[in-house]
């Protein structure tokens, strides 16, 4: 037969002297998980050092989707750059548009009209729901449950229908632009959106019954990949991953933007099991908490949207004289609450219409950095559970 050797590639930088000598000497195996792997949510490559089913060490390797989006930002005007922000986190395009738009508005001092702010909030929360639906569905897939995926995507399709009606695109919207939003809402959109919210809210109970409180699912995710609040902050985790550790922290409350201070909503956090309907065995900061925080955030998003739809008034949707605006020789760093965490844009102007430097701080990028810290001495099946619960989008990790 063909003799093959499985030698590790030299660039892995994993130490090999942990093989213990004994009667039952076991072989450690280096396994490539990805870049083509069903549960790495894109082109993530994780090198696992395994001993049987135990994963001793996991080292993520990223960059397979690197498109140098920051370099592109230095060659185009801000309103031309909006479509590129869609391509970063392609699951939550609206929120990315919003972050970059706010960054440019803060830099140039553009005042956004009231109606545009309301529409932005509606779109951002809709996209938060859509993004969380993808996260829940694919997390079900990671756990081997196929049905939640199609159920979540069924509702996501309706959100995409709404987006398509508003802006004509279903994935890369470029709807929220510098100074406002690109188009006004079509006739009947608000009613349709309310109809969707009425339809969607009871569906969350369905997801809970099917997946969240499923005994096997809880056993698979509870106490797996526990991250403490201190670790989470040290590694720069934000968003649901940070809230699951018990820190009630959300930029929409802390540093409100686009009028989030007007709305009444709660910040769900992860908590230990046994109370408030959280199953026994759940520990603050484990995979189940991260998953369930997203479920709870969807209900809060529905709440915000109902208020925003009620307060939507006629008016202009875009600030005047935004296209071709000269960026002052100044710099700004703006973070907003993306579905995945805090999405930041650092923009530096130099007096021309084109930014001198655009830097995106992707929440997925920072959240993924904790992988090698968390994926230690766990089972192979826990690796997809942890990666999936961090909910990374590789388009944004690699940018």
């Amino acid at each position: 037969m063909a003799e093959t050797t499985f030698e590790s590639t030299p660039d892995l930088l994993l130490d090999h002297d942990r093989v213990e000598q004994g009667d039952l000497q076991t072989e450690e195996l280096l396994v490539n998980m990805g870049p083509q792997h069903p549960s790495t949510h894109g082109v993530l490559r994780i090198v696992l050092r395994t001993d049987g089913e135990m994963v001793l060490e996991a080292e993520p390797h990223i960059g397979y989707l690197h498109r140098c989006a920051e370099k592109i930002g230095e060659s185009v005007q801000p309103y031309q750059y909006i479509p590129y922000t869609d391509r970063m986190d392609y699951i939550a395009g609206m929120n990315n548009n919003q972050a970059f738009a706010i960054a440019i508005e803060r830099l140039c001092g553009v005042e956004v009209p009231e109606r545009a702010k309301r529409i932005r909030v509606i779109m951002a929360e809709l996209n938060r729901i859509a993004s969380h639906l993808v996260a829940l569905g694919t997390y079900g897939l990671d756990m081997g449950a196929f049905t939640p995926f199609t159920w979540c995507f069924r509702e996501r399709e309706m959100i995409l229908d709404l987006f398509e009606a508003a802006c004509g695109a279903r994935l890369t919207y470029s709807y929220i632009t510098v100074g406002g939003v690109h188009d006004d809402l079509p006739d009947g959109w608000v009613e349709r959106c309310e109809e969707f919210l009425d339809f969607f809210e009871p569906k969350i109970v369905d997801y809970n019954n099917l997946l969240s409180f499923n005994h096997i699912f809880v056993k698979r995710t509870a106490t797996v990949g526990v991250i403490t609040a201190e670790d989470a902050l040290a590694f720069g985790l934000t968003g649901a991953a940070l809230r699951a550790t018990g820190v009630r922290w959300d930029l929409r409350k802390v540093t409100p933007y686009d009028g989030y201070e007007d709305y009444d909503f709660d910040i769900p956090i992860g908590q230990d099991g046994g109370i408030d309907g959280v199953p026994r065995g759940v520990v603050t900061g484990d995979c189940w908490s991260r998953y369930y925080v997203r479920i709870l955030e969807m209900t809060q998003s529905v709440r915000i949207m109902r208020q925003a739809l009620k307060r939507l008034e006629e008016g202009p949707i875009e600030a005047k004289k935004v296209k071709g605006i000269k960026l002052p020789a100044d710099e700004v760093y703006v973070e907003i609450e993306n579905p995945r965490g805090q999405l930041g844009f650092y923009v530096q102007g130099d007096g021309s219409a084109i930014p001198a430097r655009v830097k995106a701080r992707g929440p997925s990028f920072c959240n993924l950095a904790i992988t090698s810290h968390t994926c230690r001495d766990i089972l192979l099946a826990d690796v997809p559970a942890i990666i999936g619960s961090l909910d990374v989008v590789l388009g944004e990790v690699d940018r």
Partner: protein
Amino acid sequence: MIPEDICNLIKARFPDAIEATVLDAARPYVQIKAESLVEVATFLRDDPSLRFNLLRSISSIDLLADNKLACAYDMMHVPTENRGDLLTTTRSFALRVVTDRDDPVIPSLAGVWRAADWHEREAFDLMGIRFSDHPDLRRILCPDDWVGHPLRKDYEFPLEYHGIPATTEYGLTNPRH
């Protein structure tokens, strides 16, 4: 706590560290010397009145006109004492370190905030800033055998990579595209 107070705190503790201050801008920051970066960062993280425990971002900047490279550090305070309560008070701050463009070396902050690990690798990969004492300074986004650092202003895009064409005919004639 406004940026002036933080700046004064740093000044009181490290009189020689500050090179420049920009405090009345959209993003106030303090420019400090590279060699005192780690002490200042540790102070910012550990001082009970500051406690900047969340490193938000490290942005590398190419100051081609001054023949310098810079790193901008954005940090934030996330109160963790009353965990579970709604947190509405926060403070954020920014540092900047400027280094030589030909031999850019900045001390690593990976020992202060572990989040700095990947951010610094990214800055190393795309801007070519070397971080001394970094535990694992490798390219993170580009392949290991990539030549050059793409985010530098004078970077020339390669025409091919391992036989894969990296530009189009249009790109050849319009290099800025």
